[in-house]
């Protein structure tokens, strides 16, 4: 055991920060076969693996790692697919440090096994070298399922229900499926070819995908039932941009992160003029917020040619919600963090174009009853920034388009769909929901976990009743 722990954790080879901050190619280069096998050998193969408890979709972690250590890379990928429809995605974007790796016993005395790196390795190996075969689906049940949205939770539901023999149609509002995986997460963090490959796998399993279909506008949930669907899953994410309602927020040059990233990623604005999508290329860029979406926006702005990118956040470093890895990558790419600072208004010129902003320094106040120290403005600490592009990344709301057109669908006070946390059942018979439309903005893997639970419940409904 001690020898296993003494083997140092694999270090992921990455593009040099100075080079990558100006290109959209993926940052981590991936482990070699030899590196993956050495890393896999660090796993203790615990009898009661805590890492699996830490995974929202209960990936069979010790089993797939053992297969890697035995050089059965294809077997490892297939083991992943038994519980995870998107291993290549999860290996890249899951917060493993808070989930599987956070529970790893090896991590108690040293650094945890690099489960995420190994997951990425196995899934990539299979995509590049495997036969392309997909899991076998059960005998057709004749039941029709409508899945609204095609992000992580929707894909998981679709995959699980296809396996059980149900007919699945996915309705996607955009012209390409993948949801936040294609419109939100940038190419340098999640290459779109990988998402396309995962979606192609679903289609091979029999999924019918209807793009450019806005459920709630083009067709309603009620109409889907009239058309013969037996059950509907709503996994449309939380895509309504949120702004701060500050003076001057309508100046040209202020984007929501949602629009900025959608233009760049889904609509390939970074490849302009090859793709005919205009995207503002600011020289002095400010990103408001400090989550993963804010880091994606800041790093995108740098790659689009900014001289300076500042992340302005009203709390301290400890409270920044982005993954440590994302913060580290951003800093390596010369993104500046301006902490305990809050914007108060924006300045513009006579043409309505953004020219700068006013901010206020904050300090953390005394802990309140909940123990939280809230940021409080420091009197008279106003100061100005020059900037020509601002990306507002302070979260997003649930889009009311679908929910308001679906009678009887109960919402919570924030406008998210109220769904049973264990099953995803909503207040409407035959309708389930999961992912960000239920929880508000969360992680890919949590959305997938919700999809897994809902698929189980939907299958029970289709075979046993409500």
């Amino acid at each position, binding site marked *: 055991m001690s020898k296993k722990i003494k083997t140092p954790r694999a270090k992921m080879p990455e593009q040099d920060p100075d080079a990558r901050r100006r290109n959209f190619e993926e940052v981590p280069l991936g482990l070699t076969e030899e590196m993956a096998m050495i890393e896999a050998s660090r796993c203790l193969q615990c009898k009661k693996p805590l890492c699996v408890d830490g995974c929202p979709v209960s990936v069979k972690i010790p089993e797939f790692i053992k297969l890697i250590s035995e050089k059965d890379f294809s077997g490892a990928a297939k083991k992943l697919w038994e519980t995870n429809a998107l291993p290549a995605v999860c290996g890249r974007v899951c917060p493993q440090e808070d989930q599987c790796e956070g529970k790893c016993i090896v991590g108690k005395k040293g650094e945890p096994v690099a489960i995420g790196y190994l997951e990425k390795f196995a899934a990539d190996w299979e995509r590049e070298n495997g036969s392309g075969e997909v899991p076998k689906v059960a005998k057709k049940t004749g039941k029709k399922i409508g899945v609204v949205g095609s992000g992580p939770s929707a894909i998981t539901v679709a995959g699980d229900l296809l396996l059980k023999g149900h007919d699945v149609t996915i309705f996607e509002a955009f012209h390409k499926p993948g949801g936040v995986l294609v419109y939100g997460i940038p190419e340098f963090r999640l290459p779109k070819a990988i998402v396309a490959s995962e979606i192609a796998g679903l289609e091979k399993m029999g999924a019918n995908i209807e793009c450019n279909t806005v459920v709630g506008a083009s067709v309603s949930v009620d109409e889907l039932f009239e058309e013969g669907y037996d059950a509907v899953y709503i996994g449309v994410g939380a895509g309504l941009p949120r702004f*701060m309602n500050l003076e001057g927020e309508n100046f040209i040059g202020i984007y929501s992160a949602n629009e900025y990233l959608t233009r760049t990623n889904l609509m390939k604005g970074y490849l302009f003029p090859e793709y005919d999508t205009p995207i503002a290329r600011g020289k002095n860029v400010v990103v408001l917020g400090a989550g993963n979406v804010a880091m994606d926006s800041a790093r995108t702005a740098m790659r689009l040619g900014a001289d300076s990118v500042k992340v302005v956040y009203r709390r301290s470093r400890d409270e920044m919600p982005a993954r440590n890895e994302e913060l580290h990558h951003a800093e390596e790419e010369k993104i500046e963090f301006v902490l305990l600072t809050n914007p108060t208004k924006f300045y513009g010129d006579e043409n309505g174009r953004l020219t700068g902003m006013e901010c206020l320094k904050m300090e953390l106040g005394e802990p309140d009853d909940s123990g939280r120290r809230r940021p409080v403005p420091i009197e008279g600490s106003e100061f100005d920034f020059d900037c020509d592009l601002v990306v507002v990344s302070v979260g997003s709301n649930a889009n009311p388009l679908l929910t308001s057109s679906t009678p009887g669908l109960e919402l919570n006070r924030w406008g998210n769909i109220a769904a049973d946390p264990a099953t995803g059942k909503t207040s409407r018979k035959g309708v389930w929901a999961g992912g960000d439309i239920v929880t508000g903005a969360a992680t890919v893997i949590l959305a997938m976990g919700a999809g897994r639970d809902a698929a189980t419940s939907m299958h029970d409904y289709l075979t046993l009743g409500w």
Partner: protein
Amino acid sequence: MEFGSVDEIISFATEREKEAVAFYTDLAKQATMASLKEAFEKFALEEEKHVELLADMGSNKEKIDSYEFKTIPDLKISDYMVEIDYKEGMPMPQILKLAMKREERAVNLYTIMADKTDNADVKKVFNILIQEESKHKFILESLYDDYLAEQEG
């Protein structure tokens, strides 16, 4: 706006607080979502407490003397926001902004009135009202702050 006595202030403030109760009660009636209805009813109840507090002061001036002043933190979240109008179906974060702004306006109004008077009793009543409205502003801004902290990912 001039006030000659404590009673006049209490009467003015009571009308203002009753208007706030009516505002939130009306929104609660209009709300089609159960959760929003509940939130508006809660806000109305909070304003109702102010009406009761003022009634208590009107009938018992000792209450004014024994009122305990505390420092209420001011997160100043609403202070830099522009005004927004209520629209049916508005999401909760927008409604919080609306409510925070109302409380901010109330704090500002009572602060201006407190500054305008030299009458110590009258000033004290205004300061009580400032504290009460500041508490509401802090509760609402804390709710919004928590929401932002949860949703910034």
